[in-house]
Each structure stands twice: as structure tokens, then as C-alpha cells.
């Protein structure tokens, strides 16, 4: 009896998928679009953190040491390395520092005088980059390093960092806003699509009720079709974004790699993809549940 009933539920679910016609494909399409946007955005966000890290690391601070020999310099470097908030600290000999200064001190007018220049030992400090830390955290780090034994002075490229920071913040903010919008749209679209399926099938449901169908008998196929809608949408979205990724990744790499070192657009990890599919199914189920519940209440 239970077996036959559930077979019949599956059959009716499949029929409602088949006969759902336009609203069904509409729902699948919309779910796919929404999920695709989410995935695409997720990929950007995912890689955005990598991007942010790359940008952050390329903006190093420089500590000038007041030491005389390599051993003392190495000791100071080690001490800087251990300071909280420091990602890495690299030692440069005075010669290397002078080379660097000669080579690429862009934005500086001091090159003119560099012929008669002498340099101290220098440590290049890469701060641990995080978007959440404000300007003050960074200043504090500079002061902390400056207070260390053997460190003469610390310079850090405030202006440049601030500017990139602001851009990254903007990206992040706009991104969150977009994400919320997309999730809202997907929920509304899917639940409405299922409601439309119910609307289109309302004659059939009315007759089922007349011949004595229980609420479960009516609701389960609709729920099933909602889940199928959501899952199908999610799968299509993943396939599409896979294709998009394959074709776009090269473009993005070529466009960005010059400036920021090798930058690759990684695909999302498998567990996020799994979440997208489960999320699609859930969205479909919730949408179906909402509209079916409302429908059962109003019809008798």
C-alpha cells in the first residue's frame, strides 16, 4: 500500500513535471539563471580574496636597520618576522637595497641624487593583509616594528595602499549587496514558479481532492516537482558556469597576470558546488511547500 502509494506519487510527480510545461521550464530556467549568477559571483568572490592577498602582499613596508654586520641584521629580521601582523620579512644587504633604489623607485624624484647614496641594511616587511583591518591597525604595526631594537625607521606606502584598499572595499560591499539581491530573486522566482505550476494544475488537484486524495497525495508530487525544478536549475547552472569558467579563465589570467604576478581564476571547490545543488533542491522544496500549503488551505 505504502509502496504503491509512493509509486503513484512518483508517477504524479513526473506527470506534473511533464505537464508543467511552460511554468516548469520557466522555473528551471530562472533557478538556473539565479544559481548561475550566484556561482559566477561566488567564483569572483573566491578568487577576489586571492586577488586581495596578491595586491596586499605586493604592498610591502620597508624597515631601515641601524646595525653594522650581517649577523645582527639577520637577528633583527627574525625579530621583525615574529611580530604579530607580519606575513614575511626579507633581508636585503645595503648593496641590494641600493640596487633596488636605483632600479625602480618610481614616483620619486630622489633618483637625481642617488649617485652619492649610501644605504643601510634593509628589511622588506610584508604585513599580513586583511580587508577588515583599518588604517590604524597598519600604523600600529609600523610603530611596533619601529620600536624594535636595531630598527632605525619604518616607511610604508600609505597612499597607494589606501587607494587599493578603498577599491577593494567597494568591490566587497557592492558584491555583498549583489549577493543578497540574487538570493532574494532566486527565492521569489522559484516559489512563484511552483505557485504557477499549482495554478496551472489546479483543475487536476481539485479533481484529485474530489475523488478523495489526502493532502499528502496532493502535496508530495508538487514538492517533488519543486525539488526537481530546483535541482535541475542548479545542475544547469553548474554546467553553464563550468563552461563559462573554462572559456573565461584564460582571458582573466592574461588580463591580470602582468600586473600582479601569475594570477589564475580558480574554480570553486567541490563542496561549494555540492552546496549549490543542495541549495537549489532546498529552494525548490521550500518554494513548493509554501505555495502548496497555501493552496491546500484555500481549496477543500
Amino acid at each position, binding site marked *: *500500500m*505504502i*509502496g*504503491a*502509494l509512493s*509509486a*503513484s506519487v512518483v*508517477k*504524479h510527480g513526473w506527470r506534473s513535471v511533464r*505537464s508543467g510545461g511552460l511554468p516548469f521550464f520557466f522555473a528551471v530556467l530562472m533557478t538556473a539563471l539565479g544559481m548561475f549568477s550566484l556561482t559566477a559571483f561566488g567564483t569572483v568572490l573566491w578568487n577576489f580574496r586571492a586577488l586581495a592577498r596578491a595586491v596586499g602582499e605586493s604592498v610591502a613596508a620597508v624597515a631601515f636597520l641601524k646595525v653594522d654586520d650581517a649577523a645582527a641584521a639577520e637577528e633583527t629580521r627574525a625579530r621583525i618576522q615574529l611580530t604579530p601582523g607580519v606575513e614575511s620579512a626579507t633581508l636585503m644587504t645595503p648593496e641590494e637595497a641600493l640596487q633596488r633604489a636605483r632600479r625602480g623607485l618610481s614616483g620619486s624624484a630622489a633618483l637625481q641624487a642617488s649617485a652619492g647614496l649610501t644605504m643601510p641594511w634593509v628589511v622588506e616587511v610584508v604585513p599580513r593583509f586583511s580587508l577588515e583591518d583599518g588604517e590604524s591597525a597598519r600604523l600600529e604595526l609600523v610603530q611596533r616594528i619601529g620600536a624594535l631594537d636595531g630598527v632605525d625607521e619604518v616607511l610604508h606606502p600609505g597612499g597607494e595602499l589606501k587607494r587599493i584598499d578603498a577599491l577593494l572595499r567597494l568591490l566587497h560591499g557592492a558584491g555583498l549587496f549583489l549577493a543578497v539581491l540574487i538570493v532574494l530573486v532566486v527565492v521569489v522566482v522559484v516559489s512563484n514558479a511552483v505557485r504557477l505550476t499549482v495554478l496551472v494544475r489546479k*483543475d*487536476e488537484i*481539485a*479533481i*484529485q*481532492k*474530489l*475523488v*478523495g*486524495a*489526502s*493532502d499528502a*497525495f496532493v502535496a508530495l508530487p508538487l514538492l517533488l516537482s519543486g525539488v526537481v525544478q530546483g535541482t535541475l536549475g542548479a545542475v544547469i547552472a553548474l554546467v553553464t558556469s563550468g563552461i563559462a569558467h573554462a572559456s573565461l579563465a584564460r582571458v582573466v589570467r592574461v588580463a591580470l597576470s602582468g600586473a600582479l604576478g601569475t594570477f589564475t581564476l580558480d574554480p570553486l571547490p567541490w563542496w561549494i558546488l555540492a552546496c549549490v545543488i543542495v541549495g537549489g533542491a532546498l529552494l525548490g522544496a521550500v518554494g513548493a511547500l509554501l505555495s502548496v500549503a497555501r493552496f491546500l488551505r484555500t481549496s*477543500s
Partner: protein
Amino acid sequence: MIELYHVGKVYPGADRPALDDVNLSIGKSEFIILAGASGAGKSTLLRLLFCAEQASSGQVILQGKNLARLSRHEMAKARRSIGVVFQDFKLLPALSVLDNIALALEVQGLSRDDVVRRCLKVLNEVGLSHKTHQPIAALSGGEQQRVAIARALVVEPAVLLCDEPTGNLDAERAREVMELLITAHVRGTTVVVATHDPALLSGGRRRVVALDQGRIAHDAPAAAARRSDQRFDAA
């Protein structure tokens, strides 16, 4: 089997009650013809028995249960033991004849094999075997009416409610359908047929309950051919 006590029904927004202080008692395995002019309240009475509407006043008792007190679940269960031929058929035009009839059995959780077997049997009885896989939309009016009858009969119901089951049938077909209803009646089903068909009304071999403007105008017990398994009933 079916008892109505002072039942009234006023539709919201209607100028006069569709049913007015109706008292009626129908015994198990009785065969009742519900007569009355258009708008007399025949369909309304059948709708009350079928829980498609609630009585505005009075009580409707079906198989010992007060219909006003049924839960949604009990109502669904009660409906599974009732076969109904609706005046407007209520078939799904896009589904095939078989699927339309199968609906009534699927709801009961029967296996597909049983469903198909019983559907084919009843389709044979109403003479529509050759239309099994046609969509309802491809059937003539009379054929659709016979599908509606088949769907009511297929569940082998305890109570069979027929609203104008021969309106779209020629005399020959109408007689065949009546014979089907009588067969069900002989098997022990309580049958209530609402009709204006003079052919069904004439003869006086059945109990006729006539409605007029929502009230029972007369209730004539069957004059002859009364079956042994029928109880007498106080009208």
C-alpha cells in the same frame, strides 16, 4: 445510511436558500431518484452529501458520521467510498480516458496493475473500450458522460451520487447507463440519481424525491419492484 435533519443551505450572496428545511432518510442499498426543475436544489443536495459544501443549518449524517464534524483526513477517506457523476463531468481534457478513470483508484493507493485492470473492466461496461487511450477532449459529449460514470463506478463505492447522468445520452445509451446503475444497486450500493429525464421518472418503480425551490415537494416510495434488502424509511 444517509440522514438529513432540517438541512438548509444558503449560498453567500444568493437571494433565496438553495435548500430549505430538508428532511430525508435514505436506507442502505436504496435507489432514489431526485427530481425537480432546474435550480430546485438537486445538485446542492448532492454536494452536501459529498462534503463539497457545508450545510448552513441542520445536520447531514452519512454512514453514521456527521459531515460537519469530519477532519480533512476523514473527509478525504469518506470521499473514497463515494462515487460521484458530476453534472459537468469534471474530467481533465488533456488526460486520456484511462488516466482520468485511474485517478480515482490511484488516490486509494492501488498498484498500477490493479488500477489498469479495473479501469479496463469498467470501460468495457460503459462501452468505451475503443477510446481507452484517447484524450477526453477528443470525445463526444455522450462519451465524456460515460467516462464520468465509469470513474464513479470504478471504485465500487458504498454510495453512488449521479447528477443528471443521462443528459447527453440518447435513449438507447441512457437505458444502458441506467442498467449499470441498477447493477451497482443490486450489488448493495446506495444510489441517488438527480435527473429531469422523463424516461427515468416514469414507471413508478423507484422511490422519487421531488424538490421544488429547495423544499421537498413529494417523496413517493417505490410502488413496485421493492427489493428485499431495502429497509422501509420514515421520510
